[in-house]
C-alpha cells in the first residue's frame, strides 16, 4: 500500500502506456492532515455558499427512489416514508443531494485518473479471496445503507457536516459509529489483517 510520505511518485502497479485508465504513474496519497484540512475547506465552502453540508446517502436515497418510482409509482404514493421522496408528481432526481453525489463520483474519478489509481482491483486483506471480499462489501454496504437512513445521515452528511456545525445528535452519532466499529473489529480481524 502506498504510504503518504515523500513527494515523488512511486510507479507501483502502473504500466507505462497502459491505455487511458492506467497510463499515468501511481502517486502516493496526500498526507492525512493535509487531506483533513482540504476536506474541511470544502465542507466550509459548502456551508458558506449554500447553507448545506456534504453528503452521499441522501442523494443515493433519491436515486433509488427514482427507480422505485419507475417500477411501482403507486407503492411510492402509499408508504409514508417514500411519499416524501417520490410521492405524486415529485421528481426524486430534482434534489441537490443527487447532483452532489454525481459530482462526488466524477471528482473521485478525476483524482484517481490524475494520480494513476484507476486500476481495476479488489482491495482486500491478505487472508481472504476476492469473492469473500465482494460478499463482505455487499453485506457491509447493505448494513451501512440501512444504518445511514436510520440515523438520518451517513458519515459525511451527519458526522462530518453535523460535527462541524456542532449538532449534538451528530456528535452522539459519530461516537456510536466508532463504537460499533471497534466493538466488532476484533471478531473480524482475519478479514482485514
Amino acid at each position: 500500500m502506498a504510504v503518504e510520505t515523500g513527494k515523488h511518485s512511486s510507479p507501483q502497479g502502473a504500466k507505462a502506456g497502459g491505455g487511458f485508465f492506467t497510463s499515468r504513474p501511481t502517486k502516493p496519497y496526500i498526507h492525512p492532515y493535509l487531506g483533513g484540512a482540504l476536506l474541511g475547506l470544502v465542507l466550509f465552502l459548502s456551508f458558506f455558499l449554500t447553507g448545506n453540508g456534504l453528503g452521499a446517502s441522501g442523494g443515493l436515497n433519491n436515486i433509488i427512489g427514482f427507480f422505485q418510482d419507475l417500477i411501482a409509482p403507486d407503492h411510492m404514493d402509499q408508504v409514508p416514508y417514500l411519499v416524501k421522496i417520490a410521492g405524486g408528481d415529485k421528481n426524486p432526481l430534482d434534489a441537490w443531494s443527487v447532483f452532489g453525489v454525481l459530482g462526488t463520483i466524477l471528482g473521485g474519478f478525476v483524482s484517481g485518473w490524475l494520480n494513476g489509481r484507476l486500476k481495476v482491483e479488489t482491495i482486500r486483506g491478505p487472508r481472504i479471496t476476492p469473492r469473500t471480499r465482494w460478499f463482505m462489501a455487499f453485506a457491509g454496504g447493505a448494513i451501512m445503507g440501512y444504518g445511514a437512513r436510520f440515523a438520518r445521515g451517513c458519515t459525511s452528511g451527519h458526522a462530518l457536516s453535523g460535527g462541524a456545525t456542532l449538532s449534538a445528535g451528530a456528535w452522539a452519532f459519530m461516537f456510536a459509529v466508532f463504537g460499533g466499529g471497534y466493538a466488532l473489529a476484533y471478531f473480524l480481524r482475519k478479514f482485514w489483517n
Partner: protein
Amino acid sequence: MAPFPLTLSTLLGHWGQYAVYALIGFAFGFVLESAGFGNSMKLAGQFYFKEMTVLKVMFGAIVTAMVLIFAASGLGLLDYNLIYVNTTYLWPDIVGGLIMGVGFIVGGFCPGTSLVAMATRKIDGLFFVLGGLFGIFLFGETVDLFAGFWNSSYLGRLTLQDWLGLPVGIVVLAIVLMALFMFWGGEHLERIFGGKDLKREPKVRYAGAGALALAAVIVVLIGQPTTSDKWQALEPDKAPLLAERAVQIHPGELLDALHSDALKVILLDIRNEADYNIFHIAGARRVTLAELSDLIPSLLLEPANTIFVTVSNDETAATEAWKLLTAESVPNAYILERGINGWLDTFASADPALRKSTPVAGDDRLRYESAMALGARSPAATPEVDEFQVEYTPKIQLEFKKGPSGGGCG
C-alpha cells in the same frame, strides 16, 4: 446582514443552483480520493490502530470547517441561523450510528467513500455501493414497522453549545484541543500497532496544530454576534419596513391566513398572562421576549410556508418581538396591526361578553374587559370568515430565504 449563505435558487435559478452542488461534490470526491478514502484497507486500518487516517482526515476536516464557520459567523459574514444544523433524534442517531459502525468494519467503506472507490474502479467499492443501495431500499420498505422509535427523542436543532450552556467559542476551542490530543494519541497508536516511524512525519504538522489552536482562540475572542448586534446590522434594511407599515397585517388578513390551507400560521402572543387569560386568538402561544429567544432554533425548523405573527395589546411589544425574530433570520415574520385591541375592534361584536373598558388604558394595554377570563373560548377568538367581510391591503408575501435544507443525507 450577513451576506452568506447565498440564496442560490434566486441567483442561479432552480436547476442552475445544482451546478454549485455538483462542483462542491466534485471537490469532495477529489479530496476523498486524494486522501486515500477510496482504499478500504486504509479505512479499515483505523479499527486496528494501524492507520489512523480516518481519524486524522475526519477530525481534521471537522475542526477546520468548524473554526472557519464560527470565525465567519463571528465576523458577521455567515449567518449561522441559516445553515443547516442536523436535527437531533438522540436514540435513532445512536442506534443508526452503531449499525453504521458494524457496516463500516464489515464492508470497509462508508457511503461517500464507496462512491469514490467505485469511481476509481475498485470492485469491492462497486459491491459496497450496490449493497448500500439495497440497504437504503430495505430501510424505505421497513421503516413503518418502527416509525414510533424512529421519530422518538426528537430534540430539534440542538447544538453542543446550547446543550452545555457554554459560549460557542469555548466549545470550538475545547473540540480543537480534543482533536489535537486525539491526533497525538493516534500517531502513537500508529507507532505501536502499525510500526510507523514518527520521526519521518513532516515537522510542519506542529505549525498546523499551532495555527489551528490560535484560530480557535481568535474565535473565542471575537465571539458571536448577539441579537442586538444582528438587529443593528439589519436596521437600515428592515426599519423602513416598520415605518412603511409593510409588515403590520390587518386582522382581516390574519383571519384569512389562519383559514388558508397554503399557510401555517404561528401566533406568538407577547402579553402578560392576565391579559392572555382574558382573551387571546385561538391557537396563540404566549411567550415572553426572553422565552422567544430560546424558541428561535425550533422556529427556524418550521416549514417554508410558515408565517410568524407577533401579537401584543397594541404594537409596542409585538414590534420588539418582530425585531428579535427578524434579527435571528426567522423568515416571514409579521406584526398584528394594532394588536389585540385592533383585532377586537374588528371582531368583538361576535361576543357580547367583551366590552370596551373605561377609562381608556395606556399604550399596549388591553382596552377590552370581560366579567370572566374568556381565553380562546370567546367567539371572537375564532371569528367566522363569512360573518365579517373585512377589507384590507394584503401584505403577506412568502419569502424563501433558506437554501434547500436537509443535510446531505436528509
